[in-house]
């Protein structure tokens, strides 16, 4: 695919840089500026009475960081944890959150004309967090507003009282 990995931000607002990860057969893109780092999966400390997709917390250089398994959350892909499992560490709403995905495929630059509106599925698929669809040739990347998704109530990552 595109091998232009040089940073482009500031060049043109119309071009967005996205980190693409896979969940099952689907490709998702998130704003690369929200990504802090990509790590392997390490043993987590589970948290009692948390939803199944919250695997627990890990020690990330002294901070306690919750780990969300997107494969469980979206019901896609078989959650297998091994040396190749990828954790994307996100830096969103002044917090650090880890996200387990099947794999990270690449970083793409998406021009404005390659962006499509989010599809309508009625109530079949929750599309609130889908910003749009990125299309490059045959490829379709689902662009997720990761900040909004992670701070949503259903993710149970944030105290309800915190947002008063």
């Amino acid at each position: 695919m595109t091998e232009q990995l040089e940073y482009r931000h500031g060049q043109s607002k119309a071009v967005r840089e996205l980190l693409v990860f896979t969940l099952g057969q689907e490709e998702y893109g998130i704003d690369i500026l929200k990504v802090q780092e990509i790590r392997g999966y390490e043993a987590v400390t589970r948290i009692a009475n948390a939803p199944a997709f919250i695997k627990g917390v890990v020690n990330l250089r002294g901070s306690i960081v919750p780990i969300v398994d997107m494969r469980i959350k979206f019901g896609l892909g078989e959650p297998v944890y091994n040396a190749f499992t990828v954790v994307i560490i996100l830096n969103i709403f002044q917090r650090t959150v880890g996200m387990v995905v099947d794999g990270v495929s690449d970083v793409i630059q998406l021009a404005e004309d390659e962006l499509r509106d989010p599809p309508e599925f009625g109530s079949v698929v929750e599309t609130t967090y889908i910003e749009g669809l990125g299309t490059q040739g045959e490829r379709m990347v689902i662009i997720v507003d990761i900040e909004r998704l992670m701070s949503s109530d259903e993710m149970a990552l944030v105290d309800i009282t915190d947002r008063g």
Partner: protein
Amino acid sequence: MSIDMSQFHQVFFDETDEHLATMESVLLGVDLAAPDGEDLNAIFRAAHSIKGGAATFGFADLAALTHILENLLDKVRKGSMRLTADMVDACLNAKDVLAGMLGAHRGGEAVAESAISAVENWLERLVAGGGSAPPPVVAPVQSSAAPAVCTTLYVELDCCLPTTDYPALLQSLTALGELSVVQEGGGSDQLPWVVIFTSTLAADEVAESLAFSISPEHFRITQDHGQQDEGDFGLFLSSSIASPTQTAAADIAFEEDGFGLFEPLAAAVGGSEPTADMLYEEEGFGLFAPVAGPAIAPVMLHEEEGFGLFAPLEPAVAVAAAPTVAVVAAPRQERAAPAVENSIRVNIDKVDLLLNLVGELVITQSMLTQSSQELDAVQYERLLGGISALQRNSRELQEAVMSIRMTPIAFVFNRFPRVVRDLAGKLGKQIELKMVGENTELDKGFIEKLADPLTHLVRNSLDHGVESPEVRVAKGKSAVGRLTLRAFHQGSSIVIEVTDDGAGLNRERILAKARERGMPVSDALSDSEVWGLIFEAGFSTATEVTDVSGRGVGMDVVKRNIQSMGGRIDIDSMPDFGTTISIRLPLTLAIMDGMSVRVGQDIYVIPLTFVLESLQPQAPELKTVAGRGQLVNVRGQYLPIVSLAAFFGHVDASAASDPTSAILVIVEAGGYQLALLVDELIGQQQFVVKNLETNYRKVEGMSGATIMGDGRVALILDISIIARHNQRPAQTAARQAMTDEA
């Protein structure tokens, strides 16, 4: 010619804040009948420093008001006027106005001109009225020169009076002031006892107290005029010279390393002879022309490393050399103000960064310690020695760094003498405020957040708790209500209590109010549950909205504030006996002693302060109630067993099935004991407490997390929550639901 002075304004503002706070606290503490000379000096110095700073930085309004204030204080200090309650009121008022002016310079709202002129007039009236000072409340003073400040007296006592116990007598004197024995009496020569006695008491007052134990013809008291005011820097001459003219002039004082050049006041008229008493102190040196009139503006005082050139009365102050950059709150050799420390101001972010780095260091160190444990002690002696030294050093470093963030709670408490004084006056109640444990330290972040909730609680206690004097007397209590603020450490928490000896909470009224609001309450609720109701939003038992409370900020806000700090608030109340509201706060980022336990595959940490003991239960000691609730008999006491595995919904713990193969950890929280069922005890060590909420949310039953030696995360149990859950699961859940709705 001018340097941008604004860069120093912040320092001035901060210092003035401190000076105002000092002034207020000393004013509130001063004993009208016998004011301590050192206290009066402290107030004067605070006013003086503010005036000097204000004039330097061009805040003429501040300087003008402090000047009048200072005139008054100076007279009092030198004893030409007695301190009266009216003066204290005026000074407090002036302090408020000054604080307001300061706020205005910082960009806040301007203070009303009328308020300024009112307080100026008030002060001036007091200064003018000084010539014929109103007769003080205390017994009149014989010697006309008797100053209100420290007096040194020579006391001679005839010896060998058979009925007199000299040591006890002298002991009783030391309670009143400083005493040093010059000559011990008695012996073969029948020498009299000679002691030097320094106190605020005048000769006749000392005589009076002596006369209780020894008849007047057997002792003599002479006043020593040569040795006064040791804390006074020796600047101020004997109290007898305090005529207004000289007062103003004598104010030009240089202390310690201060030096400077002063020009005479251009505006001052009258060709009178220079009257200034020029005083040079220690390394101080300077040139100045005397001031010619009494009604004058800035008198400058330079402290410590301050130096400069000033031309007073010119709006823009000319500064040649670096101006007063006193980064440090003036450290002085005074006993009265231990709060004045040598300090620097540091951005709190830097401290936090340091704290985090040290936390990392401690974790790395414990990781090293753990991996070194398998090494052969003989072969790796040096390495192991180094690791244990590292352990000690990093622990000390961590404590030192943590202590940077810790601030005495006095910073919050200090506002309450004033709050209580004003409020008691407004409500027509008599209140005695007692503060205990002001030096208890807690995180600076808490200090700021605590002020509002505590103020609210204090106001509540005064308004609703403490009865009016008549009611109190009718109830057989003393007319003076007592309000106690207490702070102390309890384990890894800090507890702050607001206690009053007032009427207590009215159970019936609270229940009635709750019903009125349609809450599902029954008479069967326990007292503590009833008290808990007052934390509901919009719940106020005040029958009428007063100026003091009932203005919409309720206990629910207090509770929310405390909870947002990770704390808890509890109420204890007895009718006619009083109410205690205790706030329990965790010490953030503290190192905590804990016991790590294994539950299934998970490691949890139990704060050691809750742990009483641990034991392996034998089958005969285990009982059940109604087939489910398990109990363990610990030396005749039946304690409920809480399986942590079940509590956290884990299924892989073997302990859940067979307690006899597991360990029970007996914990106590909130006066309630229970046995936690765990698989294994791992060990006892110190843990760095990390906040779970930084990146995640609050987890029920957890007070935080920590990082173990192997780098993994372990969760720290919140024993008090677990205990409360166990006590009344249904009601806790119901209350939870109610607060969630609110």
